[in-house]
């Protein structure tokens, strides 16, 4: 079942906390999408401030960011959908494909050595939390509302642009083309498999791979 086929106001399709969301933000799917994007912007801004100040380490910053995004997704009406085995497998393959692409395209240049100042397990927990929560918001809740407001193409473009934008504060403008492209790939997975699980798996695999790159 595709979330963007659901009808606004249909209680059977509402996620956590979405009972009165339309009336609170103009009563439209578009208003709901704008409000969700605004919440996303607030969380990204707070994370940026933490990043600049380095008042918490990277693992703590990631966990806080991820938890905040999960709250946004829950309150914005994300409705969990049981992922299919095919979707999960496709997501894993897509993640590996993104990693392989990055390595092959830059061959023979070596990847940037970042070093590790944390144990793998807490780092991986934070990384998985961030990647999954970003997908829950972007290709979960936000996709739902933009899809209802403007269709699949609108959802694909809006979520891909926002995916690129949320990385700009930390990674700079130069990251926008790459993350927009990756956003399209993740959006394609969302379209093909009907929920945020497949893009989340792809996102997690690609991020976890950075430990070894």
């Amino acid at each position, binding site marked *: 079942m595709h979330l963007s086929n659901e009808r606004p106001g249909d209680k059977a399709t509402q996620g956590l906390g979405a009972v009165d969301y339309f009336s609170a933000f103009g009563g439209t799917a578009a208003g709901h999408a704008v409000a969700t994007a605004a919440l996303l912007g607030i969380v990204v801004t707070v994370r940026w401030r933490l*990043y600049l100040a380095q008042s918490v380490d990277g693992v703590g910053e990631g966990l806080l960011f991820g938890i*905040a995004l999960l709250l946004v997704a829950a309150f914005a009406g994300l409705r969990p959908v049981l992922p299919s085995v095919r979707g999960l497998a496709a997501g894993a393959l897509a993640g590996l494909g993104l990693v392989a692409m990055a390595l092959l395209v830059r061959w023979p240049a070596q990847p940037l050595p970042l*070093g590790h100042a944390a144990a793998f397990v807490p780092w991986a927990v934070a990384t998985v939390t961030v990647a999954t929560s970003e997908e829950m918001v972007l290709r979960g809740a936000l996709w739902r509302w933009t899809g209802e407001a403007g269709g699949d193409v609108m959802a694909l473009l809006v979520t891909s642009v926002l995916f690129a934008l949320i990385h700009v504060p*930390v990674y*700079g403008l*130069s990251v926008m083309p790459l993350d927009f492209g990756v956003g399209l790939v993740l959006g394609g997975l969302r379209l093909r498999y009907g929920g945020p699980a497949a893009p989340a798996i792809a996102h997690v695999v690609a991020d976890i791979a*950075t430990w070894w790159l």
Partner: protein
Amino acid sequence: MARHRLASVAIIAGTVVAIVAQRGAPIAGPPLYDGVVVVAPYAWLSPPHGLHSGAKSDRETFPVSNGGFGAQTQEQPPQAQVSLDFGSLLMPAGTKSVIVTIRPVPPPSVAPSDGIVAGNVYRIEASNQAGEAVQVRPGSQITVILRGPTSLLAAYVELFAGGTWTSEDTDPVGVPDMYTTLVGSFGDFALVSPDATWVPDGETGPPPTAAATAASAASSATGDAAPQTSATATDSSAKPSDGSRRSGPTANAGSAHGTAGQGSCLPLTQIGAVAIGLLVILAAGFIMTRPVRPPGS
């Protein structure tokens, strides 16, 4: 079926965009620039009061081949890195291996005209097995990546050569306070903050004296990680300079930064910001979950 077709188009188009973007990127970064990166405190060659010393060097030997290679200092993340390939080098005849060294050196006596040096100055050099200088081939470029101290909002990589600082086109890497550039030579590199009032977070006193800087440099030069090579094309003086970093008011002294010793106070400001952010989210959630009142009731 239309949705599956759109999905295929999105995946193919996204892959093409990502390939083009990666190909044009200044560095071979992580695939998504999206991992959670853990950052250790910045290590200074001559630390300001309250900050850490222990800046490290690196020396790597690479047999000549067709591939790429690189070197990086031993902090986490590395504070200075260079990435290059053999095709971009002008090597003396008979070169069988290339030795790449990176080491922190005292800042030159000349300060940049467009800002202040933020962090250490790193000398990046290359030589062959006989100690003969290896240069960057004219028209070729190598990648230099420098990490600066905490709170560096903006910075440029600058090259000091011939008695002057030259600003290079610089991009953020995606790791806090880390920047990269493509340059056409080895030499002395540093991050330069365009903000003339910038001071590193956690600094609690005046800048180190010239004697302290020289002593730190001497200590580093005799350390096991400090290589001694002859290949340099720069004109860096060993004389330290007050222009390398302004002490300024101790505005950040006791401020909310607790990154592993870069400050001892609780990060109350940031905790407050996070708390406010979460409260906003909770409030929004409360608004969203209000019971629906039917129109006209």
